[in-house]
């Protein structure tokens, strides 16, 4: 088991999940409540990583973040380092790749809230922002937990996008899934089976946790 790769994977997942939750909140709000006729375009865009081969997404991110692109050059001028084949590049790629795993459960949770609560909050003098923090968010905690867990699990299991934009640099971009690929290439089946078993158990535990939360876990007003 490559612990350096494990810690890097964990670091990536633990940064991506909360960041993505913050990014997903306004997008999910828009999807759940906007009456814009072009809303489906945003929904389609957000869900794209679900059906797109990771290599396609990785390829375009490689182009956009590469040193020949304006964004890549801008980043290089700003930090002195390239974005591609770096941890930060990997982070940005993961944010795109895991976006639907945060937005879909959150927008579903927002959309399932009884609209009367939202109207009632407004009628009682609260702004949309106050209503969001005092009504929508507390009533969507299950959706938020699901989004967090799915994002962590999905980031840990990433392969295609990581390989395309991160390469395979130990300590920088070599995550567990890349490490597993390396071990198989090197015919180290013992090491590969340990990593694969670890990823399998980890993913299973995380998914089981979602179902546990949805079926059993009750907080605050639900247990009182």
């Amino acid at each position, binding site marked *: 088991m490559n612990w350096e790769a494990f810690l890097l994977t964990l670091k990536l997942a633990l940064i991506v999940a909360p960041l993505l939750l913050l990014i997903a909140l306004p997008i999910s709000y828009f999807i759940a409540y906007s009456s814009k006729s072009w809303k489906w375009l945003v929904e389609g865009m957000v869900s794209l990583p679900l059906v797109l081969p990771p290599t396609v997404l990785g390829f375009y991110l490689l182009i956009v973040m590469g040193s020949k692109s304006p964004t890549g050059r801008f980043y290089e001028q700003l930090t002195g380092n390239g974005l591609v084949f770096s941890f930060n590049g990997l982070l940005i790629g993961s944010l795109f790749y895991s976006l639907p795993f945060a937005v879909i459960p959150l927008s579903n949770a927002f959309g399932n809230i009884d609209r009367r*609560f939202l*109207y*009632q*909050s407004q*009628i*009682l*003098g609260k702004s949309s922002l106050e209503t969001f923090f005092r*009504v929508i968010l507390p009533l969507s905690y299950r959706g938020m937990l699901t989004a967090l867990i799915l994002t962590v699990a999905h980031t840990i299991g990433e392969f295609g996008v990581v390989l395309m934009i991160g390469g395979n640099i130990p300590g920088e971009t070599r995550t567990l899934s890349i490490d597993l690929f390396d071990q198989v290439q090197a015919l180290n089946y013992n090491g590969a089976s340990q990593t694969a078993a670890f990823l399998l158990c980890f993913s299973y535990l995380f998914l089981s946790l979602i179902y546990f939360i949805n079926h059993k876990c009750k907080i605050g*007003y639900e247990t*009182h």
Partner: protein
Amino acid sequence: MKLQVDIHFSGEIGLFSSKATPLSARFSIVHANPRIIVLFGHSGSGKSSLLHALAGIIRPKNGSIWHEESCLFDDQKAIFLSPRERAIGLLFQNYSLFPHLTVLQNITYGLSQKSSQQETGDLWLKRFLLEGRGSDYPHRLSGGERQRIALAQTLAPKPSLVFLDEPFSALDRPLQKRLLIAVKEWLHQEGISAIIILHHLRDAMQIGDELLIMGKGQILQHGTPDEVIRHPVSNEVAEILGE
């Protein structure tokens, strides 16, 4: 009280069903003092839709709504105030208490001054015979208790105009009578006008300064309870009152 309503809509998406009852309502209430108006009519006659339109939850197709000197809606001038901007109160038919807040937090949700929240909350709990339930969550309460809390939540911020959609329907008859009097006295004492949907004519007679009879999305008759009962303008009104 000054409320001038002339609104029309048909087939728009309603709040709780795919379509709201088509409505064409025109009436005017102008009186020097606050008034309690009772909205009376068959189920599906558009009473709730009218309240939702007045509260800003449904946007009418045409017409205008004026409350005191403020224009709440005017399609010609493209004015449509949000529910928050209208400074009104609305009690939904099946009451909507926030499930994640305690009874006390629900009652005081619309109050802006934090310092007086506990005091105001306790006052309403006492007024509605719910002392000691302030720390409970709504799902622990009976239907009648929830309805009283929702009523307290609506009235506590003292809006200048409140809309109450069947506010006593989940209560037993003795409690209905008791709260009817309590709410009437409180509204008069605070100088607050109200439009209330009720299903019993005797309650309407007891609480209402004026009656609005609705049928098939239209105002069929408007007057004092005595006038309307003595001189119904049509067989339809007589039939509605007969029920």
